[in-house]
């Protein structure tokens, strides 16, 4: 492969010895940065698709029976398929690949001072399996009977019996795609953990590792420890659906609730799997733009550990009313509310970090701060759902939906924009436009709140999720409720259209943006000591580490930052 001659593609860096061809450079590369970009672009494209799905079904909710521009009429069948795939795509094919795989791949070697991942070929393979899972999911949209519409949670018997879901092929392909995605992330996760444990630059001790690397590694470990039973469960579900076994069929001795245990034993830790990388990204950004040392570095780690461990003990709060033994609910109420302690403490740490800073509000900082402001809403509303008593009422209403969008949108959308705007100079060697960045920021964050605050109210008023048309329910047809639903939908339209600003900014800056210096934000961590963008191998001479990552504004020093690789 090294000998490939470039065909039909002008080499951009003519100074290198032999420029690999298009396929070798963009599709078959083992370079961690290229694989990160593959994950980033694939994941972002999937986010656009998921956003499009949201646009279609929200339009149907606000204007029932409307022919949605770009889609057409939405049948109940299609509605179910759209919400199912919106959820699955946003979590499995957007949040996971972008937050863990893209940032993990890009940042781990660069931040720990290594030239690549420990296993570059396995890294490439993990992306390829991920890509395969995307393709299988796409195929599932177009097979006979249509795409799977049994919610991303795939509860049997609906998902286990073709007679009930009426999408025999769609269901099989959907479950297969999810299982393949898990395999890809198991491989990728092992690579991340091993690389961060073993390939650190000389001198980098445990507490010199940037928080975001810690968080991605912890997330990978939590993922690894929680997904196994669901992998086994997915096999069982596929057997039930296609071979006629009865693992989840109550009529023949199976138990549908078992699936719920397997699913949520993974599903709840999964929230923290995507949360931790996002809070890691936020930690990097607020320290740089507040010129402050991270408040109580070790406490942040302990809270992350604590959240990780506790996340394995809370899964059944998704099943309070699912027919489990009512006594179990008491145990899970306690564990669930306990998890608010480390998460609240983590937010307190971030707020405390701002104290005494010298804060500037560039685009990445705006994103990072808005993460804290909005995630707090997601956090406090979780208490209503963790408390078994109120969950009886709120379960599966729009309150739940608004709650987890107030966690997942800050995590996935805001976290991604924070990370991309912050590391864009390093990724592509050019600067983004700050003014367009700010327009995009306000155009995203304001409508985001206007979508989901009305949905909290609608949820408390008794509106349930996953219902195709509320006007059939006399109580839900009240004009004020329909108006709130319209407000949410219109806000979504506004939010989605503002993404065009980002895309324009991104692609324009990619070609025409001002050239980025090595360290545009005056940051301490190692990735900023490499060229922008770093070449294959990252550094000519690999760095050595002398101190922790957050030594900003150290008294007695002329500069207000102190890079990790500078001896003194």
């Amino acid at each position, binding site marked *: 492969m*090294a000998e490939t001659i470039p065909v039909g593609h002008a080499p951009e860096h003519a100074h290198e010895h032999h420029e690999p061809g298009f396929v070798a450079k963009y599709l078959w590369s083992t370079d961690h940065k290229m694989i990160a970009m593959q994950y980033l672009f694939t994941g972002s494209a999937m986010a656009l698709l998921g956003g499009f799905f949201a646009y279609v079904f929200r339009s149907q909710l606000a204007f029932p029976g409307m022919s949605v521009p770009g889609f057409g009429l939405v049948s109940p069948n299609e509605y179910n398929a759209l919400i199912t795939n919106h959820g699955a795509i946003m979590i499995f094919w957007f949040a996971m690949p972008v937050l863990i795989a893209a940032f993990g791949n890009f940042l781990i070697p660069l931040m720990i001072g290594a030239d690549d991942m420990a296993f570059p070929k396995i890294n490439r393979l993990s992306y390829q399996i991920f890509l395969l899972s995307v393709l299988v999911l796409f195929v599932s949209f177009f097979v006979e009977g249509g795409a799977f519409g049994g919610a991303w949670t795939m509860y049997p018997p609906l998902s286990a019996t073709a007679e009930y879901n009426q999408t025999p092929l769609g269901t099989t392909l959907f479950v297969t795609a999810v299982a393949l995605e898990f395999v890809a992330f198991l491989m990728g996760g092992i690579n991340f953990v091993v690389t961060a444990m073993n390939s650190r630059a000389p001198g980098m001790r445990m507490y010199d590792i940037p928080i975001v690397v810690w968080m991605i590694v912890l997330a990978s470990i939590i993922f690894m420890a*929680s997904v*196994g039973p669901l992998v086994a469960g997915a096999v069982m579900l596929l057997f039930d659906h296609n071979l006629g076994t009865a693992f989840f069929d109550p009529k023949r001795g199976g138990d549908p609730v078992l699936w719920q245990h397997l699913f949520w034993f993974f599903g709840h830790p999964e929230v923290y799997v995507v949360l931790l990388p996002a809070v890691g990204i936020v930690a990097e950004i607020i320290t740089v733009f507040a010129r402050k040392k991270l408040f109580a570095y070790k406490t942040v780690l302990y809270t992350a550990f604590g959240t990780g461990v506790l996340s394995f003990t809370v899964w059944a709060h998704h099943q309070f009313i699912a027919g489990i033994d009512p006594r179990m609910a008491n145990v899970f109420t306690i564990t669930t509310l306990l998890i608010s302690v480390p998460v609240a403490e983590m937010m307190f740490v971030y707020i405390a970090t701002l104290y005494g800073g010298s804060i500037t509000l560039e685009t990445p900082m705006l994103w990072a701060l808005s993460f804290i402001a909005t995630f707090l809403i997601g956090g406090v509303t979780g208490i209503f759902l963790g408390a078994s008593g109120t969950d009886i009422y709120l379960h599966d209403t729009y309150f739940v939906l608004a709650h987890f969008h107030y966690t997942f949108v800050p995590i996935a959308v805001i976290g991604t924009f924070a990370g991309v705007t912050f590391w864009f100079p390093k990724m592509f060697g050019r600067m983004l436009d700050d003014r367009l960045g700010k327009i995009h920021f306000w155009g995203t964050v304001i409508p985001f709140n206007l979508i989901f605050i009305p949905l909290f109210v609608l949820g408390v008023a008794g509106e349930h999720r996953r219902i195709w048309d509320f006007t059939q329910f006399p109580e839900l047809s009240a004009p004020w409720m329909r108006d709130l639903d319209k407000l949410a939908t219109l806000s979504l339209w506004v939010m989605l259209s503002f993404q065009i600003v980002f895309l324009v900014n991104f692609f324009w800056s990619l070609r025409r943006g001002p050239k980025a210096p090595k360290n545009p934000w005056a940051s301490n961590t190692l990735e900023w000591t490499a060229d922008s963008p770093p070449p294959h191998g990252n550094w000519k001479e690999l760095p050595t580490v002398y101190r922790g990552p957050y030594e900003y504004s150290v008294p007695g020093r002329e500069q207000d930052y102190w890079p990790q690789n500078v001896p003194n």
Partner: protein
Amino acid sequence: MSSARPIATTRSAAGMPTGRLAVWWVIASEIVIFGGIIASYVMYRLAHDAFAESAAHTATWIGATNTFILLTSSLFAVLGHKAAEHGDGPKAARMLHLTALGGLCFLLLKSYEWTMEITHGFTITASTFWSFYYTAAGLHALHVAVGILIMLIVAQTAKRNLELHRVELIGLYWHFVDIVWIFLFPLLYIAK
């Protein structure tokens, strides 16, 4: 893109060779996969007495023989590791071939056993017990088959005294496959 390993692969800040560390993490993630299926099985087993009746139809002697075969093959894997540590590639390769042979015997005996059971009407849909029986043992057999394949590849390079550290890695994996069987055997065959 040279084929040389990145420096990242050769570092060992955690004090353990990168390959071995990775295999341990692979095993950790496999433990939860098998753990999930075994835990589900045990929960069903406790809830349904009918399982014992189905389990009475399993061929305990074949299971026992297979246990013996797998344990023996693990012994060869240990001997292969020892040879590799002494730098004796060809001997390590011979030992790995013997290990793979053990795995193959296991699979052959298993297919005989399954054929017999299926012809007696105990198919995967016969009852929840049989569903678990074929799914759990099948997932394990898949790991045995993949292990054999990798082992043959490792033996091929070890014969030429190359990449000898891999002998230990495949051995670790093989022991894990062995231990999973040690859990499955009593659960599927003996506990009546």
